[in-house]
């Protein structure tokens, strides 16, 4: 089964390209401490705003910090924002989706009203509200993005659970008295995994993009910690005199979010059971 999916991804050139981008990104994030030529927060005022060259591959910023090293470390931060935020969203969304779909009735309608309320909030407005009123920090960014992006997934999972619940193997499991937790984890979860994987992949890209938007508004990851969004926002103010400060983070965000989207779409195709006929 997995082999078939893998083949489908490999045959989908765009998805493969997405996978390559994400792999490179992950490697950059994992290896940043070995690869980075400079300390990402190490300042050198005398070497500020130097263009790309042999000493600094991607130039230096307004405090003389090496942009290439900051980009590498930034990948770590941007990626962890994406992954943790999505992790939170998946956790909540899946739990609510499964509980809602499995129990139905009052619990279902109560949870779905909650979903409606969260969905009715313009997401970015909510994120803005929370972050503006709390201390802006990488953790708050992760948590808030996570807390606001689960309802879509909850609906997907719920729909999936609704169709599975009536299948024989679940009914049989119930008859022989399998515990609910076991039913959740053994029967329901594996069968809802593909929409979760797809929306998680797309979600990581979204979260990275949201962080850059928050950084633009001054509410993202705070310095000196380098996130791409924050580097881009800094670069924006220097766009007239130091183009490299915005170009590289901008392209990195573009490529990464694009990569996650292409892979996500590819996964959607590959995991779509309808294509099996």
């Amino acid at each position: 089964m997995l082999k078939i999916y893998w083949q489908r991804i490999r045959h989908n050139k765009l998805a493969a390209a997405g996978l390559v981008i994400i792999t490179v990104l992950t490697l950059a994030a994992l290896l940043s401490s070995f690869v980075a030529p400079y300390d990402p927060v190490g300042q050198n005022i005398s070497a500020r705003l130097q263009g790309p060259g042999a000493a600094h591959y991607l130039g230096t910023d307004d405090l003389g910090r090496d942009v290439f090293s900051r980009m590498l470390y930034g990948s770590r931060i941007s990626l962890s924002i994406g992954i943790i935020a999505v992790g939170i969203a998946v956790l909540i969304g899946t739990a609510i989706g499964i509980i809602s779909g499995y129990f139905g009735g009052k619990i279902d309608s109560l949870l779905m009203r909650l979903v409606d309320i969260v969905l009715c909030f313009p997401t970015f407005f909510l994120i803005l509200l929370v972050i503006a009123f709390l201390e802006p920090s990488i953790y708050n960014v992760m948590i808030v993005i996570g807390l606001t992006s689960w309802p879509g997934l909850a609906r997907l999972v719920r729909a999936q659970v609704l169709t599975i619940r009536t299948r024989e193997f679940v009914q049989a499991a119930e008859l022989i008295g399998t515990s609910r937790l076991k039913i959740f984890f053994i029967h329901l979860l594996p069968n809802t995994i593909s929409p979760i994987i797809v929306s998680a992949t797309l979600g990581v890209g979204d979260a990275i993009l949201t962080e850059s938007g928050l950084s633009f508004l001054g509410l993202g990851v705070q310095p000196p910690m380098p996130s791409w969004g924050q580097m881009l926002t800094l670069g924006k103010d220097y766009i007239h005199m130091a183009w490299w400060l915005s170009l590289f983070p901008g392209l990195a965000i573009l490529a990464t979010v694009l990569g996650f989207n292409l892979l996500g779409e590819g996964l959607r195709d590959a995991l779509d059971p309808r294509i099996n006929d």
Partner: protein
Amino acid sequence: MKRILPAVFALLFFTSCGDGIKKTAAPDSAEPSYGDYFVTSSIGDASYLNPILATDNASGSINGLIFNGLVKYDKNLKITADLADSWEISDNGLAVTFHLRKNVLWHDGAPFTSDDVKFTYERLIDPEVKTPFGSDYALIKKLETPDKHTVKVTYKETFAPALESWMMGIVPRHIFQGSDFNSSPANRRPVGTGPFVFKEWKTDEKIVLESNKNYFEGRPYIDRYIFRIIPDQSVEFLELRNRSIDEMSLTPDQWNAYKEFFSAYNKFRYPAFQYVYMGFNLYNPFFSDIRVRRALAHALNKNEIINGVLLGMGKPATGPFPPQSWAYNSEVKDFEYSPEKAREILFSLGWRTEKDGYLHKDGKVFEFTIMTNQGNKIRSLSAEIIQSQLKAVGIKANIRIIEWSSFIHQFIDKHNFDAVILGWNLSRDPDQFAIWNSAQTKEGQYNFVGYSNPEVDRLLENGRRVFDLKKRERIYREIHAKIFNDIPYIFLYYPEALPVVHKRFKNVEAAPAGIGWNFHKWWVPANEQKYMLTR
């Protein structure tokens, strides 16, 4: 944070500059001509076009053009006549009598009288009016208007900064009477006495003023003043490069950017009336020892901070008054930058460098947190540089950047911090009682570092009581030296203002009061005029 003065661009000041930058746009000998627009911009929209209610910079700069105070600062920061022709101070220093200018008309044609001054004063102290400026007038015992053109203010005690407080814009009684002051429509369609008349306000887009043909100091040469709202700084700069705005205050990096950007602009450069500091929590046992603070003072390289943050466009600070103020004490010599000295002092206190490169004592690292507010890049950059300078000495400084409101309430007001980086924008009068007096340490008050020196307390009291400038000068210079020696703050730097103005504007002169003090005398030669007033 922002001290709004009812004077145009009042925050700007002038000192000598050595790099060929113009002090003034060449005074043009030709006869000034009328016409053209002046386009400027701001990050935020104005709130109230009413000097009593407005607290933001945007409203402040517009109100300065529409309203006049009784007095104002001249270009050399001497208090001079505005709506008041002249004034005298009683011998005991308790009463000030203003003689108002006659024949001044409000923009709607009504005559300006002492009733308007009385009305303005009553609003300032009215508990129902949403003004934060009431405390300046709390010391007033009574305000009398013996006739249409005389105002006599009597104080409960002598209060030297009183005159400055009468720079507050005077609002028209006849416009506001009978309506709720806080929500009057006149707060969006102001009627003043100033050189410019309100024309239109397109929310979040622009505010347009037109010249006041009947201005008592003569009709301004420029026909229209347009205030555009451009919320993003890089876009604002883009508009400047596109020459679609005529004036902008630059960041040091913008100032240093390619020359051809500015071929059409005159650049001005002078110290602003403000300073940035790192303040210590003196209640914190860590910092209550002055030797520790002195060590830190030696550890910081202010010039590197100024070069890094301001590209050298600023001066190292030694005390709470900027160098262009008469209160500044030039004899105060700054701490020598010497990491060795810093380490020596700390070693003598028992700190030892360990393998990790940091100083340790009793199993603890020398570690503290520097806080500053979110949204101020200069301050967070300063924090980052300080962090790395302290690291070189073996001190581990963490940085925390916190949203303004939480910063004030959870940390500043509760004395819940190690060190903060903040700045003070200063009034021209050196009275800083609220900042340094040892009693001003309650929640919401400004001596949040907990500075206490009985002698400084006494000097601060005296400074407020004496009108004589020579005596005041002595008092404040002493305060400067004492505060410097006590190191409640490390005074980091005095930043500079870096405005550029389009070259076609003549008679632009940077003086101690900045460049905008004579805005109504700016003019554009007829053949260089860019915009035409169509009617």
